[in-house]
């Protein structure tokens, strides 16, 4: 194959990606326009009504935006105490040892488990616990969905954080050790401050994953269409309302669901952009 043909092939493959993304954005936008036209863009964002009664149809995304944010942030909070130690284990404590690469592989395997399997685990293992603790009568709700979400994003947060921890230059660590610091002191005073912004960005990217996570959350969150009163309440995320109602939706409701999808697309894109920006700015 000539150089020119090869280059054209690469150009073609690359532009397909752009066309697909652009096409997605276009069809989401055009599908969402009827809803935005009917209710107004800002009204759609700020209303928590979800009323499919014919004749008085009214849809707003606020309840799902709030549900998504609460579930995802709680998910991050559940993820943090597991993923950060794992990252330190892989990136510093047992760096370069067999046990670290073994653990790293297992953590990466977590990312490959299908979402529905996590959902089933949450349904059969976590839900009974929530019920027996008396936190929720049916065992569904934000408090059931977010720990599962937290576990699901561990691999994304942990492997990227471990990478940043590993990148802390050795001579800085040695400098601290040479003054009599212990391992814990080196981690606390040198490694975490230096890799801090990188670790922060890995959690931002993990948040991006959490926002759009659909299946497991849909199975566990209880699928209620109002703004949740507390973390013990049931609710819906932007992804779960779409998954739940897309099948039988048409007309204005369908357009509203597509509008929710468009918003989710934009929020996730912005979160990912911010995460990558922080990484770029703090390149070690």
């Amino acid at each position, binding site marked *: 194959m000539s150089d020119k043909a090869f280059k054209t092939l690469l150009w073609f493959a690359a532009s397909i990606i752009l066309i697909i993304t652009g096409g997605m954005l276009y069809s989401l936008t055009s599908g969402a326009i009827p809803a935005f036209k009917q209710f107004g863009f800002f009204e759609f964002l700020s209303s928590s009504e979800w009323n499919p009664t014919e004749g008085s149809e009214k849809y707003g995304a606020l309840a799902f935006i709030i549900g998504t944010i609460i579930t995802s942030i709680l998910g991050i909070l559940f993820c943090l105490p597991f993923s950060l130690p794992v990252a330190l284990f892989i990136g510093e404590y047992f760096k370069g*040892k067999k046990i670290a690469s073994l653990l790293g592989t297992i953590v990466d395997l977590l990312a490959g488990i299908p979402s529905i399997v996590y959902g089933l685990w949450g349904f059969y293992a976590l839900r009974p616990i929530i019920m027996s603790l008396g936190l929720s009568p049916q065992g569904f709700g934000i408090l059931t969905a977010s720990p599962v979400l937290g576990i699901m994003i561990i691999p994304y947060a942990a492997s990227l954080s471990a990478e940043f921890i590993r990148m802390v*230059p050795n*001579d*800085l*660590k*040695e*400098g*601290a*050790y*040479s*003054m*009599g*610091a*212990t391992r814990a*002191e*080196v981690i606390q*005073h*040198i490694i975490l*401050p*230096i890799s*801090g912004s990188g670790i922060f960005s890995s959690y931002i990217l993990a948040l991006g994953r959490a926002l759009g996570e659909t299946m497991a959350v849909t199975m566990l969150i209880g699928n209620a269409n109002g703004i949740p009163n507390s973390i013990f309440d049931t609710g819906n995320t932007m992804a779960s309302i779409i998954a739940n109602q897309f099948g039988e939706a048409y007309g204005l409701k369908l357009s509203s669901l597509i509008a929710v999808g468009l918003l989710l697309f934009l929020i996730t894109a912005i979160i990912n952009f911010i995460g990558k920006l922080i990484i770029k700015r703090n390149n070690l």
Partner: protein
Amino acid sequence: MENTIKENILTLKDVCISYTPGQNAVNMVTADIQKGLITSIMGPSGCGKSTLLRAINRMHELYPGITITGDIKLNNKDILKMNAIEVRRMAGMVFQRPNPFPTLSIYDNVIAGYTLNGIKKTKDEKDEIVENSLKNVALWDEVKDVLQKKGTFLSGGQQQRLCIARALALKPDILLMDEPTSALDPIATNRIEELLVELKKEVTIVIVTHNMSQAARISDYSMFMYLGDLIEYDTTKKMFTNPQDKRTEEYLTGKFG
């Protein structure tokens, strides 16, 4: 120098260090290092000079699989039997590449030894330590108005002096320097060398260098190592004017290395 009473601060006896079993990177090194002087360790790359230096503050323990045998006594204490953390406070270290902590200010870099070890000091005590340590390395006048700026804003030579100040702040008995000027330009190198000659009033210095003229300029005693063996150890003057071993002579005259 000949008139002063010799006092050994560091004694090495039959020191062997190996990275892989059965293969000594440092082989049966025996030497006494005198207090208040500068001793340089020279030799070609891979001769074991840095390996030997790093055994003195037990840096090798940070990595698995390195074994050290023999006796290393610092101030008559067997450092291989001591707590590594105590050893490292007694033996400060300065590295090849200036390594101020990038997230800390100049002030906090100097005081880092105390912060890292969790030693509480009052603001006045800290101010005093910072000022004295920076004066010791002739950096005070250059940085006294920018103490809150990050240490990494300084030039390479200034950063290295900051690292020396950081090591001195803990009042070590001995300062171990691993090619401390190899990343610096000649002017910065010159300043560090002048500084070291000044500093030997305060602290004993052991410096690893591949720069023979540097060893000749600043050190009182010199060691020459080759393939893990200590070939020759004598006053710098004698070693440079009348080396006893053929290999030393060949190295010093640039025949290899």
